[in-house]
């Protein structure tokens, strides 16, 4: 049975898109035509740092410098590393802003 897509709501634009559990939220957003901020798209630069407003995600491998433990504790995630484990609402925190 094909995995069920999760519903991802991007608060900045108000759009809700589908994202497979094996897909990253960034890639799903870009594929849907959303101008989500990103840089390395591989967990190194932190450009796509976002606030997880609700829902659960799993994070793929990333560098220590891309997201501090305090940021992670405060619910910040990297959209390029985040795979949804439930329906999710998130807010990107701006280009260059953390």
């Amino acid at each position, binding site marked *: 049975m094909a995995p069920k897509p999760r519903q991802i709501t991007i608060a900045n634009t108000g759009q809700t898109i589908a994202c497979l559990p094996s897909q990253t939220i960034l890639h799903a957003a870009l594929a849907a035509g959303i101008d989500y901020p990103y840089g390395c798209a591989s967990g190194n630069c932190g450009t796509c740092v976002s606030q997880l407003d609700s829902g659960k995600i799993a994070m793929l491998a*990333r560098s220590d410098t891309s997201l501090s433990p305090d940021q992670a504790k405060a619910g910040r995630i990297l959209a390029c590393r985040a795979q949804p484990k439930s329906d999710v609402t998130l807010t990107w925190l701006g280009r260059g802003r953390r």
Partner: protein
Amino acid sequence: MASTAATRRARACAALLEQVHAITAQHGNTPTALHAIKLKLVGLAKKPGLFPEEDFAMPVAQGRFHPLLVEDNDGLGLYLTINLPGKEAAPHDHGIWCVNAAISGRERHVFYRRTDDGSVPGRAEVVITGEVLVQPGTGTAMSDHDIHSTEVLGTEPAIGLALYGYALARFPSVAFYHPALNSTRTSPSRRHAVPA
């Protein structure tokens, strides 16, 4: 008190950078020079007991840089890198030369060439030109604008040495390339940042 390994390591790193300066003074940052530097770095990475795991904390996430010797005044930056299995970096161009050598583990470096003319901001096309598996006894060297991606293979952390033409804190803009999206994004340059 500093451990014996730390003292020996500091001496060995200083000696390496002295040799690197001698090479670049004679040959500049040419491929020949970078190859010679790579051989020196591979030699350093192979020295037993210089880089004991207990001296270097593992990443909190999956990738970490430990400064070994960072020169002042826009000098070189030598780091010990630890990347855990699965850690990757999309194709990128540091804007500055780089040499890597493995201490343990395996990391795949894939090299790319940009094929578009750069006339459309944010758009880029790259093609793969080669691949190197960096594992103990080997390394790789990249010129200022070479493009490469990295990925840790296997189940062991990839621990290695990375030497850059500038310290990470003084890096120029890094360009990232995303073949699946035919896009490119750049990070801000740190060349004019006030040193911490």
